[in-house]
């Protein structure tokens, strides 16, 4: 007999007993903090098993705790939360099947599976990518390469970027960006080392050519790494993508480009019905070995625009300041206007009739002033300020800065940098993201 118990221990600490196969889902509003302790049992967050009797804290994110075995969790939050508990065994069984099928592919070849995950909004794409990576770590010491092609999400980096990151150790379930990239000190979990490319605009439709070329750039780094690194190559590549409504679903130009650039051999479609999988298999029949559909989990919390923005703020904050577990100290640097060279990606909405003749992959140099830069997130490239600007198209991103203050009359500004250093002598790219501290 399984029923969910709910009992109040005191006004703030609550306990929930989760029967096996049940998922506990809650959205923690930005600004409030949820602390969860697994008192007993095996419980995991998106494939990462939680330690018992260790407090985990979450801020401004959605939390999914799945009970592998009957578990008891204790949680507290100053704000009134309404966790949802739902039976979710079947969904997880599908993921396990998928994982072990991938596992077998890893065992039987030196080239691991290269999986593209596609689907509409709120179908569990990112969670699936995270679970597949986490499970891959568990049996053997694999290092699956996690690729995030959704520029509205930040994975080991800020929204605006797309990234590729070998997952060689546990993901950080408390982090809004899945864990910390390399820091100067000690962190509770192992750091990750992402390759970061910048798209910088909020919407893919505003500059599809730039999005495609950014993918090409990321993929070229990935292919090079896979060539050099037999462990990552064998572990395979898991690619998360933007929701379908942001992509061209008539000619499937972006999906086709991703398949080509990353040598995709399997597609996982997150969808309620078979239609999408059928259409994709018709379009990409010749290129793709397997297309598998996974129905979305029942426990999903749809992310609307407001939540997306709140989550992006949390991610930006975490990039500079870290988490409660790993506190980072960013560095504010003053600089004269003349010390910065800033470019801006083009945006198709700004062009009229002559749209077709414009090369949208070109960056325009912009004037350093408050109307352009106030509160802006800027991507710092690895390209020297003095170098020719067409190198920007192949630039890697070494980090992001936040312009906190611009004084037009003194021609001075202040930049928040993640790293304690002077303002790098590098070309910078303005993103569409703003952050007011």
């Amino acid at each position: 007999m399984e029923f969910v118990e709910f009992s109040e221990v005191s006004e703030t600490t609550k306990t929930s007993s989760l029967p096996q196969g049940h998922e506990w889902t809650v959205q923690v509003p930005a600004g409030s903090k949820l602390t969860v302790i697994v008192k007993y049992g095996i419980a995991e967050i998106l494939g990462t098993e939680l330690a018992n009797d260790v407090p985990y804290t979450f801020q401004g994110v959605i939390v999914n705790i799945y009970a592998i075995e009957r578990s008891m969790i204790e949680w507290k939050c100053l704000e009134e939360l309404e966790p949802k508990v739902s039976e979710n065994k079947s969904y997880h069984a599908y993921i396990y099947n998928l994982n072990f099928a991938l596992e077998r592919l890893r065992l039987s070849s030196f080239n691991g599976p290269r999986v593209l995950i596609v689907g509409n909004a709120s179908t569990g794409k990112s969670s699936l990518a995270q679970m597949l990576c986490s499970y891959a770590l568990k049996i053997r010491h694999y290092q699956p390469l996690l690729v995030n092609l959704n520029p509205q999400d930040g994975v080991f980096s800020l929204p605006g970027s797309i990234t590729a990151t070998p997952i060689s150790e546990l993901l950080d379930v408390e982090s809004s960006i899945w864990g910390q990239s390399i820091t100067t000190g000690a962190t509770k979990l192992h750091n990750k080392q992402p390759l970061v490319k910048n798209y910088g605009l909020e919407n893919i439709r505003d500059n599809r050519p730039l999005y495609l070329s950014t993918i090409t750039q990321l993929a070229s780094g990935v292919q090079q790494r896979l060539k050099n690194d037999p462990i990552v190559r064998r572990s395979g590549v898991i690619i998360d993508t933007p929701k379908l409504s942001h992509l061209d679903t008539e000619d499937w130009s972006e999906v086709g480009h991703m398949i080509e650039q990353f040598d995709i051999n399997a597609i996982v479609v997150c969808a309620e019905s078979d239609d999408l999988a059928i259409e994709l298999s018709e379009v990409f029949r010749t290129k793709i070995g397997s297309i598998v559909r996974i129905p979305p989990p029942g426990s999903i919390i749809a992310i609307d625009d407001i939540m997306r923005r709140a989550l992006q703020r949390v991610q930006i904050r975490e990039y500079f300041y870290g988490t409660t577990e790993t506190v980072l100290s960013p560095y504010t640097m003053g600089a004269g206007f003349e010390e910065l060279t800033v470019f801006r990606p083009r945006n198709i909405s700004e062009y009229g009739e002559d749209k077709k003749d414009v090369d949208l992959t070109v960056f325009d140099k912009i004037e350093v002033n408050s109307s352009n830069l106030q509160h802006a997130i800027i991507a710092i490239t690895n390209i020297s300020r003095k170098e020719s600007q067409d190198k920007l198209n192949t630039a890697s991103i070494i980090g992001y800065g936040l312009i906190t203050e611009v004084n037009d009359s003194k021609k001075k500004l202040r930049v928040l940098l993640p790293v304690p250093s002077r303002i790098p002598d590098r070309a910078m790219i303005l993103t569409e993201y703003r952050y007011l501290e």
Partner: protein
Amino acid sequence: MSSEDGSNALEEFKTTLDGLTFNSRPIITTLTQLAEEHMSLAQEFVGLIENRLEKCVPSQKLFTFYVMDSICKNAGSPYTIYFSKNLHKLFRKTYLLVDNQTRTKMISMFKTWMVPLPAGDLMFDHSSLNSIENFLIKASALHQKSATPPAIQQHTAHNGPAGSNITVKSLLSDIDKLALITQSKLVSTPDDAKLQAKVAILKQLRQELQKERLAPEFLSQVHQQLKQIFAQEHQQQQQQQQQQQLPLQNNSQFLPPSSQGSVNNDMSRGSLQANGNNGSMFGGSLQFNAPFLNQLTNSNRLNKLSSLVNMLREKELLHEPGEASITTLAAKLEPEFDSSKTVQLPSYSLLQDILGDLEAQRQTQNLDILNASVLQLSQQFVLNDNHPITEKLVHFLYRAKPNKCSICGKRFGNTLEEKELEIQHLDWHFRVNKKIKGIQSNTTTSTKVIQSRNWYLDENQWADFKEEDIIATDIDTGAAEQQPTFANNREDSTDAIYTKLRNKYIVVPDYATDMKFQCPICTESTYGKYDEDLGEWIWSNCVQVGDKFFHATCYYEAAKSQQSNTSSSPSFQNLQLDLGIFNELLQ
């Protein structure tokens, strides 16, 4: 009455109340008398009692309620008015915190409040009492799910529907056999903590079985679990024997697999199926099911009866109590007294862990992913919510590696290699922890380690990067020092130096009334901030040279550029830079 009298009475009341750590009639009487004699202090007394109800340990809360009860019944208004205000909240909170025995006593007390006073009215405010009653009705509904009157309990113990002939005696003999096997294993590996725990549990289970009268269904579940463990033990033992015998007696005849059944029969007296589920890869129960364990949880000890109650309810053998009401609640809780006196079984989690680990090892024996051709990346295989092979393989992700890191949850197996990895892993945690918490001392200050994010690698650096640099456990906590920064700037922005510089601070001097200093190099003003650890206001990233304060980073850069005699920016030129301080900064 003078105010001194008042404060004396208050003091006396408080001291006496603090002494109420046991159920003492004299203390309660004294407090009631004080309350009667000093009506003007009613509000203060009520405050003290409420405060104690909030703060004292749960086991003493009831006595404090008794004081309140006594004062209200003897002194009446205004105490009853004051207490009415928070009564519901305090009652509810206390009820949730105390054990069932105390709960019953609280309910008895509550029942007396529902009896009208001689004047015809109730002692406390009606709305307050109503909300307590509603609360108790809800609480009693919860109890109903698990509790059952003692009469029925006895009845079923004799005519249990399970109707099997499993007896405590037969189980005891099973346990003894299993204990024997486990102990003999322990002889060869005396340090095995799992085995030790297993022996201890078997022992405890034995005691428990002797002590308590248990429902037949419960017995049969214990029996099933024992059977499984037994089969597994037997199989392992057999394998070992075979391995040992193999080189010695090539011709000796091995027992056919079916003979394992005879062992089962031997231990289980007929009522069991003979197919121990140790044979085929796909056969048998795949998921360790824990009803037996559920029954052993301390928090839910009455659960072991709940399934029985449900069964009886279905057959309409159970008398259903009428509308849940306060007067029946106490009776419902009573059976719990007896069970709460019995010795506690090992915690649910310990049992779940040990039996789960054993099960996982059993399930994953000889499992080979590569040869399992059913594992296809196909729609047909993936959309299958209970494929037997997956249900076995899942153990690989969890309990097949039984040693779970208590810090991060990562699992390690039992092989030598895995044990070695586990040791390295724990060692890594230890070093990281020390570094996170640690105090780093340098020449002038000792501060907490401050860290920042590093720059990302560029494409070429990343393509050549090896994860080993991050995850190798023998490296000193990650890659701070070896971490490449972007090439051109490597020289002047070595992160370690900057971290060190920013750790420099100056305690804000008393004469700095505006709490800020202006760095002569960058001309920025920095305000003091309060450092919790030091308990002082400080300027961070600050260094004092003579009577001037600089940003340590600015000073460092300026001094460095002057030292290397490169083009120094005009603003630096009129500064007398002390290279001695520059060197000290780097230490």
